[in-house]
C-alpha cells in the first residue's frame, strides 16, 4: 500500500461568527493519488482546503501531512509540502509582476537567487507563460491568470497540490489545457492532487477517487462507485457526467455493459469491449421496459424538460 500523503482525523471547524463549516471530517489521500472533492455550494470545500496547509486550524481534530501533524510543523515545512491554488486568481496574484509573483514562494523558502530564477523559469515554461514575466496581473486574461496562479504554486515544488475549482470560468480550450497540465504534473512529477470542483464532466479525467463533502464526509469511492449511488447524489446536490447519464439511457434500450463509462475515452473502450465480447455487435431496441426505464431515469435526475 502506498504512503498516506494526507490524513485528516475528526476535523471540525467553526468560523468566528459561529458558522459550523466542518464537522468531524475524516479523510486520507495516498501519495500520487488524484482526489476530487465534491459537494454543494457552502459545503465547506474551500474551508477544508485551507486546513490542509494550516492556514486555518480546526477547533477539533487534526491534519497530518506525510505522517506529521500540521500543528507541529513550521510554516516553511508545510508550505514546502502543500501548495494551495485559490479559486479566484486575483486573491493570489498579489505582486505587481508575474515574475515577482512566481518568485515569491521560492524566495520565502530561502532559496538562493539562481535557484529561484531556475524555479520560476521552469514553472513559467511548464505552463506556457514564457514572455509574460514582466506583465502585471491586471493585463492578463482570466485564463492566463488561472495559469499564472498555478505556476506560482508549482514553483515551490510541493508534493501535494490543492486546487480550488481550477476549471471555473474558463473557456473550453483553456479548461482542456488546464486539465492536461494538472494530469501531467501528476504523472510526471508524481504530485498528489486534491481538487474541489463543481465540474462533474471533468472529474473522470481528473480524479482517481472522489470524496463527497457536505460539512462532513458523506462518502468516498471511485468515480464509478460515487456516480452509481443515486440517492447519495440526490441528497447532496451532486450530479454525474453527461456521458454516464447517456449510457444509463442506452441501457434502457438494451445496451448491456457491466461498468457504465464516465468519460468519452471510457465510452470508446467500453463500446469496443462490449462489441468484441458480444460477438461483433450491439443491439439496441425498444423492449417492454424501455419506456418505464427512461421514465425512472428522468425521475432520478429530476429532469424538468417535458418529454
Amino acid at each position, binding site marked *: 500500500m502506498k504512503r498516506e500523503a494526507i490524513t485528516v482525523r475528526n476535523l471540525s471547524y467553526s468560523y468566528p461568527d459561529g458558522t459550523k463549516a466542518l464537522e468531524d471530517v475524516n479523510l486520507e489521500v495516498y501519495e500520487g493519488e488524484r482526489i476530487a472533492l465534491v459537494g454543494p455550494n457552502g459545503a465547506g470545500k474551500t474551508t477544508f482546503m*485551507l486546513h490542509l*496547509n494550516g*492556514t*486555518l486550524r480546526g477547533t477539533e481534530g487534526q491534519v497530518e501531512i506525510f505522517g506529521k501533524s500540521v500543528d507541529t510543523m513550521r*510554516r*516553511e515545512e508545510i*508550505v*514546502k509540502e*502543500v*501548495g*494551495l491554488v*485559490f479559486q*479566484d486568481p*486575483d*486573491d*493570489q*496574484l*498579489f*505582486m*505587481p*509582476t508575474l*515574475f*515577482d509573483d512566481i*518568485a*515569491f*514562494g521560492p*524566495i*520565502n*523558502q530561502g532559496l538562493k*537567487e539562481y535557484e*529561484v*530564477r531556475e524555479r520560476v523559469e521552469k514553472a513559467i515554461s511548464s505552463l506556457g507563460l514564457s514572455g509574460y514575466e*514582466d506583465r*502585471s*496581473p*491586471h493585463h492578463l486574461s482570466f485564463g492566463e491568470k488561472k495559469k499564472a496562479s498555478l505556476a*506560482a*504554486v508549482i514553483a*515551490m515544488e510541493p508534493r501535494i497540490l490543492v486546487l480550488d475549482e481550477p476549471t471555473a470560468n474558463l473557456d473550453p480550450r483553456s479548461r482542456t489545457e488546464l486539465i492536461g497540465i494538472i494530469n501531467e504534473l501528476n504523472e510526471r512529477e508524481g504530485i498528489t492532487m486534491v481538487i474541489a470542483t463543481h465540474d462533474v464532466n471533468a472529474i473522470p479525467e481528473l480524479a482517481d477517487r472522489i470524496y463527497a463533502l457536505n460539512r462532513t464526509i458523506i462518502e468516498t469511492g471511485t468515480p464509478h462507485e460515487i456516480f452509481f449511488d443515486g440517492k447519495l447524489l440526490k441528497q447532496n446536490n451532486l450530479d454525474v457526467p453527461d456521458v454516464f447519464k447517456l449510457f444509463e439511457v442506452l441501457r434502457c434500450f438494451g445496451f448491456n455493459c457491466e461498468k457504465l463509462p464516465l468519460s468519452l475515452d471510457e465510452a470508446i473502450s467500453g463500446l469496443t469491449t462490449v462489441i468484441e465480447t458480444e460477438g461483433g455487435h450491439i443491439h439496441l431496441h425498444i423492449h417492454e421496459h424501455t419506456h418505464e426505464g427512461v421514465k425512472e431515469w428522468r425521475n432520478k435526475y429530476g429532469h424538468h424538460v417535458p418529454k
Partner: protein
Amino acid sequence: MVEYPEIDRYSSLDSPMHRFDPRAKLIAFTILIFSIVLLPNLKLALIGLLASILFLIASKLPLRFALQHIKWVFLFVVPFIIIMPFTVNGTEIFSFYGLTMTYEGLEYGILVAVRAISAVILVLPMIATTRFDITIKALAKLKMPNMLVQMFMFTYRYIFVFVVEFQRTWRAMAARGFKLKTNVYALKTIGKALGTLFVRSYERGERVYQALRSRGYTGSPKTLVVFKMHVLDYILAGTIIGFAVSLHIIPLYLHS
C-alpha cells in the same frame, strides 16, 4: 467613472531618463524638487522651470500624456494667481472697485505657480520612466521600512482589482436605473455601494493573507531585483544634485 492609474504607461520607451538607475533617479529628482519649491524669487524659479521642461523633453514622454498628468496642478494654482495680486501689498498696477492689483502680488502668484508646475513636471521624468513596481523596489533598496514597502506593493496591485470591481458595481447600479445626483437618496445609495466595496475588500484582504501564508509569507517578502549603478548614473545624479544645490548657493554669492 473611475480610471486606472497609468503613470507607467510609457515606461518601456528608451531615453536617458528611462536608462537612469531608479534609485539614483529618485534621490536626485527628489532633491531637485525640494530645491525648486523653496526658491525665493521668480528668476530662479523660471530657471528651475526651464530645467524641468528640459528633463521632461529628455524623457521622451508623449506630450499629451504629460499634459494630462500636469493639468491637475493648474486647478490648485489658479486661485493663487488670481487672488495673490489683490492681497499682497506693494506697487499698484491698477485699481478696480477698491481692489488693488499689485506688482508684488502678481509676481508672488506667478512664483507660486511656477514652482508648483516645475515640481509636477519633474515627477514625470522621475516616476513615469520606470515601471511603478520597480520604483517601489528601488524604494526598498533605499531602505524604506519594509512594512511600508509591502503596503505600497499590495496597495498598488489591488487598486487595479478594485477599480474593475467598482466599475462593475457601478454599472450594475446604472443597469437598474440609478442616476448619480447630489441628493440624499443618491448619496445614501453611493454609501451602500461603497460599503459593499469595503466589505468585499476586507474579505479579499483576508483571502490575500491566506494566499500569502500559503506561499510561506512570514511578514517580510523580498523580491529579486538587480540594480546596477553605472558611471553615467553617478554623473547624471551628481549633476542634478549639484544643480539643485547651486540654485540656492550661487545667488548668495551674486548678492554679496
